[in-house]
Protein backbone atom coordinates (compact mmCIF):
# COMPACT_ATOMS: atom_id res chain seq x y z
CA UNK A 1 0.00 0.00 0.00
CA UNK A 2 2.76 2.40 1.01
CA UNK A 3 6.23 1.87 -0.31
CA UNK A 4 9.43 3.83 0.28
CA UNK A 5 12.51 2.82 -1.69
CA UNK A 6 15.91 4.37 -0.90
CA UNK A 7 14.19 7.61 0.04
CA UNK A 8 16.38 10.54 0.99
CA UNK A 9 15.42 14.09 1.75
CA UNK A 10 17.40 17.27 2.36
CA UNK A 11 16.37 20.77 3.36
CA UNK A 12 19.20 22.74 1.85
CA UNK A 13 22.32 21.59 3.68
CA UNK A 14 20.33 19.65 6.23
CA UNK A 15 19.99 15.96 5.46
CA UNK A 16 16.77 14.76 7.13
CA UNK A 17 16.37 11.29 5.68
CA UNK A 18 18.86 8.91 4.13
CA UNK A 19 18.05 5.73 2.19
CA UNK A 20 14.83 4.85 3.97
CA UNK A 21 13.22 1.60 2.88
CA UNK A 22 9.77 0.80 4.18
CA UNK A 23 6.81 -1.19 3.05
CA UNK A 24 3.40 -1.00 4.68
CA UNK A 25 0.71 -3.44 3.64
CA UNK A 26 -2.95 -2.56 3.23
CA UNK A 27 -4.66 -2.48 6.59
CA UNK A 28 -1.38 -2.62 8.46
CA UNK A 29 -0.46 -0.21 11.27
CA UNK A 30 3.20 0.69 11.22
CA UNK A 31 4.74 2.54 14.15
CA UNK A 32 7.74 4.78 13.55
CA UNK A 33 9.93 5.47 16.53
CA UNK A 34 13.12 7.46 16.59
CA UNK A 35 15.11 10.07 18.48
CA UNK A 36 13.49 13.51 18.48
CA UNK A 37 14.29 15.66 15.46
CA UNK A 38 15.24 12.63 13.38
CA UNK A 39 12.98 13.46 10.45
CA UNK A 40 9.89 11.44 11.33
CA UNK A 41 7.54 14.28 10.43
CA UNK A 42 9.34 14.76 7.12
CA UNK A 43 8.77 11.11 6.37
CA UNK A 44 5.05 11.50 6.97
CA UNK A 45 4.87 14.57 4.74
CA UNK A 46 6.59 12.57 2.02
CA UNK A 47 4.06 9.77 2.30
CA UNK A 48 1.18 12.27 2.40
CA UNK A 49 2.33 13.96 -0.81
CA UNK A 50 3.07 17.31 0.83
CA UNK A 51 6.74 16.95 -0.11
CA UNK A 52 8.69 15.45 -2.97
CA UNK A 53 11.66 13.32 -1.91
CA UNK A 54 15.10 14.63 -2.89
CA UNK A 55 15.89 11.10 -4.01
CA UNK A 56 14.36 7.67 -4.04
CA UNK A 57 10.77 6.72 -4.65
CA UNK A 58 7.64 7.07 -2.54
CA UNK A 59 4.53 5.29 -3.73
CA UNK A 60 1.07 5.02 -2.27
CA UNK A 61 -1.08 2.36 -3.87
CA UNK A 62 1.59 2.16 -6.58
CA UNK A 63 1.28 5.85 -7.46
CA UNK A 64 4.30 8.14 -7.09
CA UNK A 65 3.15 11.65 -8.13
CA UNK A 66 2.62 13.93 -5.12
CA UNK A 67 -0.95 14.73 -6.15
CA UNK A 68 -1.82 11.04 -6.25
CA UNK A 69 -0.27 10.44 -2.83
CA UNK A 70 -2.15 13.45 -1.48
CA UNK A 71 -5.41 12.04 -2.86
CA UNK A 72 -4.90 8.74 -1.02
CA UNK A 73 -3.37 9.89 2.26
CA UNK A 74 -4.51 12.13 5.06
CA UNK A 75 -2.07 13.60 7.56
CA UNK A 76 -2.96 14.26 11.16
CA UNK A 77 -0.40 16.78 12.42
CA UNK A 78 1.00 16.85 15.90
CA UNK A 79 -1.07 19.82 17.07
CA UNK A 80 -4.83 19.53 16.71
CA UNK A 81 -4.93 22.73 14.58
CA UNK A 82 -8.67 23.09 15.05
CA UNK A 83 -9.88 26.30 13.45
CA UNK A 84 -11.12 28.49 16.32
CA UNK A 85 -13.73 30.23 14.15
CA UNK A 86 -15.52 26.96 13.39
CA UNK A 87 -17.60 24.86 15.77
CA UNK A 88 -16.42 21.35 16.66
CA UNK A 89 -18.64 19.73 14.04
CA UNK A 90 -17.61 22.17 11.31
CA UNK A 91 -13.98 21.34 12.13
CA UNK A 92 -14.77 17.65 11.97
CA UNK A 93 -16.53 18.10 8.63
CA UNK A 94 -13.79 20.17 6.98
CA UNK A 95 -12.86 17.51 4.43
CA UNK A 96 -16.46 17.27 3.22
CA UNK A 97 -16.72 21.05 2.98
CA UNK A 98 -13.41 21.18 1.11
CA UNK A 99 -14.85 18.83 -1.47
CA UNK A 100 -17.77 21.13 -2.02
CA UNK A 101 -20.46 19.74 0.30
CA UNK A 102 -22.98 22.26 1.59
CA UNK A 103 -22.55 23.12 5.27
CA UNK A 104 -25.64 21.24 6.43
CA UNK A 105 -24.76 18.14 4.40
CA UNK A 106 -21.21 18.17 5.77
CA UNK A 107 -22.54 18.40 9.32
CA UNK A 108 -24.89 15.51 8.72
CA UNK A 109 -21.96 13.53 7.32
CA UNK A 110 -19.77 14.12 10.38
CA UNK A 111 -22.54 13.55 12.89
CA UNK A 112 -22.28 9.73 13.19
CA UNK A 113 -18.58 9.98 14.09
CA UNK A 114 -19.41 12.51 16.81
CA UNK A 115 -21.76 9.95 18.30
CA UNK A 116 -19.24 7.15 18.01
CA UNK A 117 -16.35 9.13 19.49
CA UNK A 118 -18.26 10.29 22.53
CA UNK A 119 -18.57 13.85 21.33
CA UNK A 120 -22.36 13.92 21.02
CA UNK A 121 -23.70 17.17 22.44
CA UNK A 122 -20.50 19.07 21.69
CA UNK A 123 -21.18 19.62 17.99
CA UNK A 124 -21.80 23.35 18.33
CA UNK A 125 -19.06 23.96 20.91
CA UNK A 126 -16.14 26.21 19.95
CA UNK A 127 -12.78 24.34 20.00
CA UNK A 128 -11.49 26.69 22.68
CA UNK A 129 -14.07 25.28 25.10
CA UNK A 130 -13.13 21.63 24.59
CA UNK A 131 -10.67 19.68 26.75
CA UNK A 132 -7.34 18.55 25.27
CA UNK A 133 -8.55 14.97 24.84
CA UNK A 134 -11.75 16.10 23.13
CA UNK A 135 -9.87 18.43 20.80
CA UNK A 136 -7.62 15.54 19.83
CA UNK A 137 -10.65 13.36 19.18
CA UNK A 138 -12.18 16.05 16.96
CA UNK A 139 -8.86 16.25 15.10
CA UNK A 140 -8.80 12.48 14.61
CA UNK A 141 -12.43 12.47 13.53
CA UNK A 142 -11.64 15.22 11.02
CA UNK A 143 -8.83 12.99 9.71
CA UNK A 144 -11.06 9.91 9.40
CA UNK A 145 -13.81 11.95 7.78
CA UNK A 146 -11.48 12.59 4.87
CA UNK A 147 -12.23 8.95 3.98
CA UNK A 148 -8.77 8.15 2.65
CA UNK A 149 -7.23 4.68 2.74
CA UNK A 150 -3.93 5.79 4.32
CA UNK A 151 -3.66 7.65 7.63
CA UNK A 152 -0.39 9.39 8.55
CA UNK A 153 -0.55 10.21 12.26
CA UNK A 154 2.16 12.47 13.66
CA UNK A 155 2.47 12.08 17.43
CA UNK A 156 -1.29 12.28 17.87
CA UNK A 157 -1.15 12.43 21.66
CA UNK A 158 2.11 14.26 22.32
CA UNK A 159 0.36 17.28 23.80
CA UNK A 160 -1.76 15.35 26.30
CA UNK A 161 -1.10 14.55 29.95
CA UNK A 162 -0.23 10.94 30.86
CA UNK A 163 -3.70 9.83 31.97
CA UNK A 164 -5.58 11.36 29.03
CA UNK A 165 -2.91 9.97 26.79
CA UNK A 166 -3.40 6.40 28.03
CA UNK A 167 -7.16 6.79 27.61
CA UNK A 168 -6.74 8.12 24.12
CA UNK A 169 -4.43 5.25 23.18
CA UNK A 170 -7.08 2.72 24.16
CA UNK A 171 -9.63 4.73 22.31
CA UNK A 172 -7.48 4.91 19.17
CA UNK A 173 -6.72 1.17 19.35
CA UNK A 174 -10.47 0.53 19.25
CA UNK A 175 -11.07 3.06 16.52
CA UNK A 176 -8.31 1.59 14.35
CA UNK A 177 -9.52 -1.98 14.92
CA UNK A 178 -12.91 -0.83 13.65
CA UNK A 179 -11.67 1.20 10.70
CA UNK A 180 -9.22 -1.12 8.91
CA UNK A 181 -7.07 1.59 7.38
CA UNK A 182 -3.42 1.60 6.51
CA UNK A 183 -1.71 3.65 9.18
CA UNK A 184 1.73 5.18 9.61
CA UNK A 185 2.00 6.29 13.22
CA UNK A 186 4.91 8.45 14.31
CA UNK A 187 5.63 8.64 18.01
CA UNK A 188 8.59 8.88 20.35
CA UNK A 189 6.92 6.58 22.86
CA UNK A 190 7.87 2.92 22.36
CA UNK A 191 4.94 1.64 24.43
CA UNK A 192 2.50 3.69 22.41
CA UNK A 193 3.97 2.40 19.16
CA UNK A 194 3.91 -1.25 20.26
CA UNK A 195 0.43 -0.98 21.72
CA UNK A 196 -1.11 0.61 18.61
CA UNK A 197 0.90 -0.91 15.75
CA UNK A 198 1.37 -4.26 14.11
CA UNK A 199 5.02 -3.53 13.48
CA UNK A 200 7.42 -0.85 14.70
CA UNK A 201 10.30 0.55 12.67
CA UNK A 202 13.13 2.16 14.61
CA UNK A 203 14.77 5.16 12.96
CA UNK A 204 18.30 6.39 13.57
CA UNK A 205 19.28 9.93 14.52
CA UNK A 206 19.37 12.42 11.66
CA UNK A 207 19.77 11.67 8.79
CA UNK A 208 17.18 9.01 9.59
CA UNK A 209 17.42 5.44 8.35
CA UNK A 210 15.47 2.37 9.40
CA UNK A 211 17.83 0.52 11.74
CA UNK A 212 15.54 -2.15 13.16
CA UNK A 213 12.05 -3.52 12.98
CA UNK A 214 10.16 -5.03 15.88
CA UNK A 215 6.99 -7.03 15.50
CA UNK A 216 4.36 -6.13 18.06
CA UNK A 217 2.94 -9.05 20.03
CA UNK A 218 -0.42 -10.15 18.74
CA UNK A 219 -3.17 -10.53 19.54
CA UNK A 220 -3.18 -7.77 22.14
CA UNK A 221 -5.89 -7.21 24.69
CA UNK A 222 -7.51 -3.81 24.37
CA UNK A 223 -7.17 -2.73 28.00
CA UNK A 224 -3.84 -0.98 27.74
CA UNK A 225 -2.66 -1.87 31.22
CA UNK A 226 -3.06 -5.59 30.42
CA UNK A 227 -1.48 -5.29 27.00
CA UNK A 228 1.67 -3.52 28.18
CA UNK A 229 2.30 -5.89 31.08
CA UNK A 230 2.10 -8.98 28.86
CA UNK A 231 5.34 -10.98 28.64
CA UNK A 232 5.51 -10.75 24.83
CA UNK A 233 5.00 -6.99 25.04
CA UNK A 234 7.78 -6.61 27.58
CA UNK A 235 10.15 -8.53 25.33
CA UNK A 236 9.23 -6.48 22.29
CA UNK A 237 9.74 -3.31 24.33
CA UNK A 238 13.22 -4.43 25.42
CA UNK A 239 14.09 -5.20 21.82
CA UNK A 240 12.83 -1.85 20.60
CA UNK A 241 14.50 0.15 23.37
CA UNK A 242 17.82 -1.55 22.76
CA UNK A 243 17.62 -0.76 19.04
CA UNK A 244 16.57 2.81 19.81
CA UNK A 245 19.48 3.28 22.18
CA UNK A 246 21.92 1.98 19.61
CA UNK A 247 20.34 4.27 16.99
CA UNK A 248 20.64 7.35 19.22
CA UNK A 249 24.34 6.94 19.98
CA UNK A 250 25.29 6.04 16.41
CA UNK A 251 27.57 8.61 14.73
Amino acid at each position, binding site marked *: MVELRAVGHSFGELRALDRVDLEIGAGEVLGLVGPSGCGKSTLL*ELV*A*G*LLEPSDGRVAVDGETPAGER*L*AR*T*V*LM*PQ*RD*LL*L*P*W*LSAIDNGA*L*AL*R*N*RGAAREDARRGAHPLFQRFGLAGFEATAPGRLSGGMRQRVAFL*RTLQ*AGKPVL*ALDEPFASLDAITRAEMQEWLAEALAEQQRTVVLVTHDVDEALYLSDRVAILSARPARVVAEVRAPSPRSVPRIEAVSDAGFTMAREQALTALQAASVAP
Partner: protein
Amino acid sequence: MRLRPADLLAPLAIVVLLLAAWETAAQWDVLADALDIEPFLVPAPSDVADSLWNDRSLLAEDAWVTLREVVLGLALAIAIGFAFAIALHLSDALRRAFYPLLVASQTVPVIAIAPVLVVWFGFGIGPKLAIIALVCFFPVTVNTLDGLRAVDPEQVKMMRTLDADRGRILRAVEIPTALPYLASGARIAAAVAVIGAVFGEWTGSDEGLGHLILVSQGQLQTARVFAGVAVLSAMAIALFALIGLAERRWAWWGKQPVAA
Protein backbone atom coordinates in the same frame (compact mmCIF):
# COMPACT_ATOMS: atom_id res chain seq x y z
CA MET B 1 -7.96 44.29 24.25
CA ARG B 2 -11.57 44.44 25.37
CA LEU B 3 -12.76 47.43 27.40
CA ARG B 4 -14.96 46.76 30.39
CA PRO B 5 -17.18 49.56 31.70
CA ALA B 6 -14.98 49.78 34.78
CA ASP B 7 -11.97 50.48 32.57
CA LEU B 8 -13.66 53.68 31.40
CA LEU B 9 -13.84 55.16 34.91
CA ALA B 10 -10.29 56.46 35.15
CA PRO B 11 -10.18 58.14 31.69
CA LEU B 12 -13.61 59.65 32.33
CA ALA B 13 -12.42 61.03 35.65
CA ILE B 14 -9.46 62.67 33.91
CA VAL B 15 -11.74 64.25 31.30
CA VAL B 16 -14.04 65.62 34.00
CA LEU B 17 -11.05 66.95 35.92
CA LEU B 18 -9.60 68.63 32.83
CA LEU B 19 -12.94 70.16 31.93
CA ALA B 20 -13.36 71.46 35.48
CA ALA B 21 -9.87 72.99 35.45
CA TRP B 22 -10.52 74.52 32.03
CA GLU B 23 -13.92 75.87 33.15
CA THR B 24 -12.39 77.52 36.22
CA ALA B 25 -9.47 78.95 34.29
CA ALA B 26 -11.76 80.32 31.58
CA GLN B 27 -14.25 81.82 34.02
CA TRP B 28 -11.46 83.67 35.84
CA ASP B 29 -9.88 84.75 32.55
CA VAL B 30 -6.66 83.03 33.62
CA LEU B 31 -6.12 81.49 30.17
CA ALA B 32 -6.88 84.69 28.27
CA ASP B 33 -4.51 86.66 30.48
CA ALA B 34 -1.79 84.08 30.12
CA LEU B 35 -2.19 84.04 26.34
CA ASP B 36 -2.63 87.81 26.32
CA ILE B 37 -5.81 87.68 24.20
CA GLU B 38 -9.42 88.76 24.54
CA PRO B 39 -11.41 86.60 27.00
CA PHE B 40 -14.16 85.85 24.41
CA LEU B 41 -11.57 83.98 22.35
CA VAL B 42 -11.18 81.45 25.18
CA PRO B 43 -14.56 79.79 25.61
CA ALA B 44 -15.25 77.84 28.78
CA PRO B 45 -16.59 74.28 28.43
CA SER B 46 -19.96 75.69 29.49
CA ASP B 47 -19.83 78.12 26.53
CA VAL B 48 -19.06 75.18 24.24
CA ALA B 49 -21.99 73.28 25.74
CA ASP B 50 -24.19 76.36 25.11
CA SER B 51 -23.05 76.39 21.50
CA LEU B 52 -23.70 72.64 21.17
CA TRP B 53 -27.27 73.28 22.28
CA ASN B 54 -27.99 76.62 20.56
CA ASP B 55 -26.37 75.67 17.23
CA ARG B 56 -27.73 72.13 17.34
CA SER B 57 -29.63 72.29 14.04
CA LEU B 58 -26.61 73.81 12.26
CA LEU B 59 -24.26 71.24 13.82
CA ALA B 60 -26.60 68.35 13.07
CA GLU B 61 -26.92 69.38 9.44
CA ASP B 62 -23.16 69.66 8.96
CA ALA B 63 -22.49 66.56 11.04
CA TRP B 64 -24.76 64.57 8.73
CA VAL B 65 -22.78 65.75 5.70
CA THR B 66 -19.45 64.85 7.29
CA LEU B 67 -20.72 61.55 8.69
CA ARG B 68 -21.85 60.50 5.23
CA GLU B 69 -18.45 61.34 3.77
CA VAL B 70 -16.62 59.51 6.54
CA VAL B 71 -18.75 56.34 6.46
CA LEU B 72 -18.77 56.10 2.67
CA GLY B 73 -15.05 56.88 2.40
CA LEU B 74 -14.20 54.37 5.09
CA ALA B 75 -16.39 51.67 3.54
CA LEU B 76 -14.78 52.33 0.19
CA ALA B 77 -11.28 52.11 1.68
CA ILE B 78 -12.10 48.88 3.56
CA ALA B 79 -13.59 47.24 0.46
CA ILE B 80 -10.75 48.27 -1.86
CA GLY B 81 -8.04 47.70 0.76
CA PHE B 82 -9.32 44.21 1.58
CA ALA B 83 -9.57 43.21 -2.09
CA PHE B 84 -6.14 44.69 -2.83
CA ALA B 85 -4.55 42.88 0.11
CA ILE B 86 -5.95 39.58 -1.12
CA ALA B 87 -4.66 40.23 -4.64
CA LEU B 88 -1.19 41.04 -3.25
CA HIS B 89 -1.32 37.97 -1.04
CA LEU B 90 -2.20 35.64 -3.91
CA SER B 91 0.42 36.95 -6.32
CA ASP B 92 4.07 37.24 -5.40
CA ALA B 93 4.66 39.29 -8.53
CA LEU B 94 1.95 41.80 -7.60
CA ARG B 95 3.24 42.03 -4.06
CA ARG B 96 6.81 42.67 -5.16
CA ALA B 97 5.58 45.32 -7.59
CA PHE B 98 3.05 47.13 -5.41
CA TYR B 99 4.17 46.77 -1.81
CA PRO B 100 7.00 49.33 -2.02
CA LEU B 101 4.68 51.71 -3.88
CA LEU B 102 2.08 51.23 -1.18
CA VAL B 103 4.56 52.25 1.49
CA ALA B 104 5.83 55.13 -0.66
CA SER B 105 2.26 56.35 -1.15
CA GLN B 106 2.23 57.23 2.53
CA THR B 107 4.73 60.00 1.93
CA VAL B 108 2.30 61.83 -0.35
CA PRO B 109 1.03 64.86 1.59
CA VAL B 110 -2.68 64.43 1.02
CA ILE B 111 -3.49 68.00 2.07
CA ALA B 112 -1.24 69.25 -0.68
CA ILE B 113 -2.98 67.29 -3.41
CA ALA B 114 -6.46 67.92 -2.03
CA PRO B 115 -6.96 71.07 -4.17
CA VAL B 116 -6.08 69.07 -7.29
CA LEU B 117 -8.67 66.48 -6.34
CA VAL B 118 -11.25 69.24 -6.07
CA VAL B 119 -10.33 70.38 -9.56
CA TRP B 120 -10.69 66.79 -10.82
CA PHE B 121 -13.76 65.61 -8.98
CA GLY B 122 -15.59 68.90 -8.52
CA PHE B 123 -17.04 70.52 -5.46
CA GLY B 124 -19.26 67.65 -4.35
CA ILE B 125 -18.68 64.58 -2.21
CA GLY B 126 -16.23 63.08 -4.76
CA PRO B 127 -12.97 64.69 -3.66
CA LYS B 128 -13.78 64.14 0.03
CA LEU B 129 -14.33 60.44 -0.61
CA ALA B 130 -11.11 60.30 -2.60
CA ILE B 131 -9.13 61.94 0.21
CA ILE B 132 -10.67 59.78 2.93
CA ALA B 133 -10.17 56.61 0.90
CA LEU B 134 -6.55 57.62 0.20
CA VAL B 135 -5.67 58.07 3.87
CA CYS B 136 -7.65 55.00 5.02
CA PHE B 137 -6.52 52.64 2.31
CA PHE B 138 -3.01 52.12 3.65
CA PRO B 139 -3.75 50.97 7.22
CA VAL B 140 -6.48 48.64 5.96
CA THR B 141 -4.37 47.08 3.22
CA VAL B 142 -1.19 46.66 5.23
CA ASN B 143 -2.94 45.22 8.28
CA THR B 144 -4.99 42.79 6.20
CA LEU B 145 -1.90 41.69 4.31
CA ASP B 146 -0.09 41.09 7.60
CA GLY B 147 -3.06 39.03 8.75
CA LEU B 148 -3.13 36.92 5.60
CA ARG B 149 0.55 36.20 6.07
CA ALA B 150 0.17 35.36 9.76
CA VAL B 151 -1.48 32.06 8.86
CA ASP B 152 -0.01 28.99 10.53
CA PRO B 153 1.67 27.01 7.72
CA GLU B 154 0.75 23.78 9.53
CA GLN B 155 -2.91 24.71 9.16
CA VAL B 156 -2.41 25.08 5.43
CA LYS B 157 -0.80 21.61 5.25
CA MET B 158 -3.65 20.19 7.30
CA MET B 159 -6.17 21.70 4.87
CA ARG B 160 -4.26 20.38 1.87
CA THR B 161 -4.39 16.80 3.12
CA LEU B 162 -8.13 17.34 3.61
CA ASP B 163 -8.40 18.09 -0.11
CA ALA B 164 -8.75 21.88 0.13
CA ASP B 165 -7.87 23.82 -3.01
CA ARG B 166 -6.33 27.31 -2.98
CA GLY B 167 -9.74 29.01 -2.83
CA ARG B 168 -10.90 26.96 0.13
CA ILE B 169 -7.68 27.63 2.04
CA LEU B 170 -8.18 31.34 1.39
CA ARG B 171 -11.81 31.34 2.49
CA ALA B 172 -11.67 28.88 5.38
CA VAL B 173 -8.26 29.68 6.88
CA GLU B 174 -6.53 32.76 5.57
CA ILE B 175 -9.39 35.26 5.52
CA PRO B 176 -10.67 34.29 9.00
CA THR B 177 -7.11 34.62 10.31
CA ALA B 178 -6.85 38.07 8.68
CA LEU B 179 -10.20 39.47 9.88
CA PRO B 180 -9.00 40.59 13.33
CA TYR B 181 -6.06 42.30 11.61
CA LEU B 182 -8.48 43.98 9.22
CA ALA B 183 -10.38 45.25 12.26
CA SER B 184 -7.17 46.78 13.68
CA GLY B 185 -6.57 48.48 10.35
CA ALA B 186 -10.15 49.70 10.17
CA ARG B 187 -9.83 51.24 13.63
CA ILE B 188 -6.77 53.23 12.62
CA ALA B 189 -8.56 54.14 9.40
CA ALA B 190 -11.61 55.41 11.29
CA ALA B 191 -9.46 57.87 13.22
CA VAL B 192 -7.77 59.24 10.11
CA ALA B 193 -11.02 59.21 8.11
CA VAL B 194 -12.44 62.01 10.25
CA ILE B 195 -9.25 64.04 9.79
CA GLY B 196 -9.39 63.33 6.06
CA ALA B 197 -12.97 64.58 5.88
CA VAL B 198 -12.02 67.86 7.58
CA PHE B 199 -9.11 68.35 5.15
CA GLY B 200 -11.44 67.66 2.26
CA GLU B 201 -13.96 70.19 3.47
CA TRP B 202 -11.31 72.83 4.08
CA THR B 203 -10.12 72.53 0.52
CA GLY B 204 -13.43 73.08 -1.14
CA SER B 205 -16.83 72.80 0.42
CA ASP B 206 -19.81 74.82 1.52
CA GLU B 207 -21.04 72.31 4.05
CA GLY B 208 -19.84 69.81 6.65
CA LEU B 209 -18.28 70.18 10.07
CA GLY B 210 -14.87 71.06 8.63
CA HIS B 211 -16.47 73.89 6.70
CA LEU B 212 -18.42 75.01 9.79
CA ILE B 213 -15.22 75.06 11.87
CA LEU B 214 -13.41 77.08 9.22
CA VAL B 215 -16.22 79.63 8.95
CA SER B 216 -16.71 79.89 12.71
CA GLN B 217 -12.98 80.44 13.07
CA GLY B 218 -13.20 83.38 10.67
CA GLN B 219 -16.08 84.81 12.65
CA LEU B 220 -14.14 84.37 15.89
CA GLN B 221 -16.91 82.05 17.10
CA THR B 222 -14.45 79.95 19.11
CA ALA B 223 -17.14 78.24 21.17
CA ARG B 224 -18.71 76.95 17.95
CA VAL B 225 -15.29 75.79 16.73
CA PHE B 226 -14.92 73.69 19.84
CA ALA B 227 -18.50 72.45 19.51
CA GLY B 228 -17.65 71.27 15.98
CA VAL B 229 -14.52 69.57 17.25
CA ALA B 230 -16.52 67.88 20.00
CA VAL B 231 -19.00 66.50 17.47
CA LEU B 232 -16.14 65.27 15.25
CA SER B 233 -14.55 63.48 18.19
CA ALA B 234 -17.87 61.91 19.13
CA MET B 235 -18.17 60.73 15.55
CA ALA B 236 -14.73 59.09 15.60
CA ILE B 237 -15.47 57.44 18.94
CA ALA B 238 -18.79 56.13 17.65
CA LEU B 239 -17.02 54.67 14.60
CA PHE B 240 -14.48 53.01 16.90
CA ALA B 241 -17.29 51.47 18.93
CA LEU B 242 -19.03 50.31 15.77
CA ILE B 243 -15.89 48.60 14.51
CA GLY B 244 -15.49 47.01 17.94
CA LEU B 245 -19.00 45.61 17.66
CA ALA B 246 -18.35 44.29 14.17
CA GLU B 247 -15.17 42.66 15.45
CA ARG B 248 -17.03 40.89 18.24
CA ARG B 249 -19.52 39.60 15.72
CA TRP B 250 -17.23 38.61 12.84
CA ALA B 251 -13.72 38.35 14.24
CA TRP B 252 -14.25 37.37 17.88
CA TRP B 253 -11.42 34.81 17.82
CA GLY B 254 -8.82 37.60 17.74
CA LYS B 255 -5.31 37.51 16.35
CA GLN B 256 -4.02 33.94 16.51
CA PRO B 257 -0.73 33.38 18.30
CA VAL B 258 1.92 32.63 15.70
CA ALA B 259 3.06 29.05 16.13
CA ALA B 260 6.65 28.32 17.09
